[in-house]
């Protein structure tokens, strides 16, 4: 189903990837990298020629107005895109140098390495807090025997341990929205991903929970790569090391520019980026 027509569009050229300059182009790049990826929904060309690098142990914020293809892009990074009937893609996505769309790759193994947290907190309703954290280990048939340690470790890293350590056997649905989202983060961490994708993880939460999760994200970045979609410019500037700005002119979404967050917010190369981060449109 991979429609690998390696077409180059003008957006490839305009969006010369600044992260490459930052990192230098070495062939043994560690982290996640996309090369000229495109996405289609049936005939609808949703995303065109995005090349980006996400270095290990960094946080990258994906920003841009609604409908510019951020969710589509992020779902390409762990092969969730292909669950949508008639969805197609082109280009390649490399994890530590190897193409995750290679026919020899098992998509389930890819998703184990590239985890995902969704917009709406969605703990499994029929499971307890503890079972929720361990759900991935069971689903992926991972052999682990220190379940108690895993539960404590993951909940601690997600910043939830202190609040729930006395009620691990309560239903996941009995937590507040912000707690539920941190539980979902803990659940993703239990399978030890190298990359964690987060699609607007705080959009359903109050400011307090949001800050709590941002702290969590920063701590996570000491060990793993985080890619986060957000509509909140302050959040992007607070939490991310790099930012990538997407846009659509009615056609397919494309990457306008990507750079260090400081540069994107103070002195971006493209005037549209400046307008967007200052809230002039979007």
């Amino acid at each position, binding site marked *: 189903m991979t429609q690998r027509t390696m077409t180059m569009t003008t957006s490839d050229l305009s969006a010369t990837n600044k992260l490459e300059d930052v990192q230098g182009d070495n062939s043994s790049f560690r982290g996640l990298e996309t090369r000229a990826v495109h996405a289609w929904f049936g005939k609808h060309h949703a995303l065109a020629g995005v090349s980006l690098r996400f270095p290990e142990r960094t946080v990258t914020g994906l920003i841009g107005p609604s409908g510019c293809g951020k969710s589509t892009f992020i779902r390409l990074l762990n092969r969730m895109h292909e669950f949508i009937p008639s969805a197609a893609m082109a280009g390649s996505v490399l994890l530590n140098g190897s193409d995750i769309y290679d026919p020899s790759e098992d998509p389930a193994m890819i*998703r184990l390495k590239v985890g*995902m947290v969704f917009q709406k907190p969605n703990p*499994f309703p029929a499971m307890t807090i503890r079972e929720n954290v361990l759900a991935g280990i069971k689903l992926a048939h991972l052999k682990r025997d220190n379940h108690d340690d895993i539960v404590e470790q993951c909940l601690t890293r997600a910043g939830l341990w202190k609040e729930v350590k006395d009620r691990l056997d309560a239903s996941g649905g009995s937590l507040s929205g912000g707690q539920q989202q941190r539980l979902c983060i803990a659940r993703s961490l239990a399978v030890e991903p190298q990359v964690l994708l987060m699609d607007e993880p705080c959009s359903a939460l109050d400011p307090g929970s949001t800050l709590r999760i941002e702290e969590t994200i920063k701590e996570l970045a000491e060990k793993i790569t985080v890619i986060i979609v957000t509509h909140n410019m302050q959040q992007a500037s607070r939490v991310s090391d790099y930012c990538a700005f997407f846009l659509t002119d009615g056609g397919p979404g494309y990457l306008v520019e990507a750079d260090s967050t400081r540069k994107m917010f103070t002195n971006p190369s493209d005037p549209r980026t400046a307008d967007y981060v200052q809230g002039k449109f979007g």
Partner: protein
Amino acid sequence: MTTVETPTPREMTVIYSRADRIFRGIVTAGALTSLLLLGLIASFLIFRSAGTFREFGINFITGTEWFSDGFREVGDESRADNSVFSIGPMIVGSLVVATIAMLFAIPLSIGGALYIEFYAPRSIYRILVAMLDLAAAIPSLIFGLWGIEIFTSFGVRWATFLNDRLGFIPIFSVEFENFGRSPFVAGCVLASLVVPITTSVAREVYSRTPRDLIDTCYALGGSKWGAIRSVVMPYGRSGVIAGAMLGLGRALGETVAIYLMLNLVFTYSYEILDSTGGNVASMIALKFGEATDKEISALIASGLVLFVITLIVNMIASNIVQRTTPRA
């Protein structure tokens, strides 16, 4: 310092708009009508069967004899009416056949529903759904006749096999080999009758699983089967049970298929491969045509028993549903 008086709670009045009031009236009337109908059915059954219950008491339910003293002329007072009515074996038969049917129907329905919803190629999905919903609406008579055709060959082979291999277990032993008329084969026919409706409900329920939760399973490195087991099936459990109850209601009340297949025998029999059996509904159909007044009262009493059994089964089911529904 002033003390604060505890205020009395204020009364809250609700003013319904005109449209609201009219709609409220309509739905209330609808609900009351169905309750009224149920009440009328129940009181009719109770009223007409009172005589039977007074005469035979608990023996009507536990006894094993059905004898209508039909030779006595109407109004002939020269000798007593020796009729005896009781339906113990028919109650057991109803439950046995329905249980066999559900044992086949539930796994088949769950499997079928999961296949259609998660494994069938997209190109035939719509056709399958349409066919299934259509099958659920086919009258049971037609299904029953078809099932009898099919299962008097298939079912008999299975029954023979069971008897050969497991005949040493009491319920699989037989006295006379006439598998075509055994509760086991009748259960198979009922299963084929029940499967469309339970599958249809199960598929509908499974299709409502939040996409988000399924996606999460995949995002955790799970397989499709993993997602089905940890999210789809728990999410759909209560709905599937409700669907199974619809099916069970159908199986308990099924008349024609059983009427055509089983020899009604008024002895308790748990040998499901033996050619004895029957159920309450088919017995009513069989006897109604030439029944005396007294016998009709007994038949109506049988109907009441079936009615109560169905109610009890439904109550147990809704209890299970409530206990197994996860708190959101």
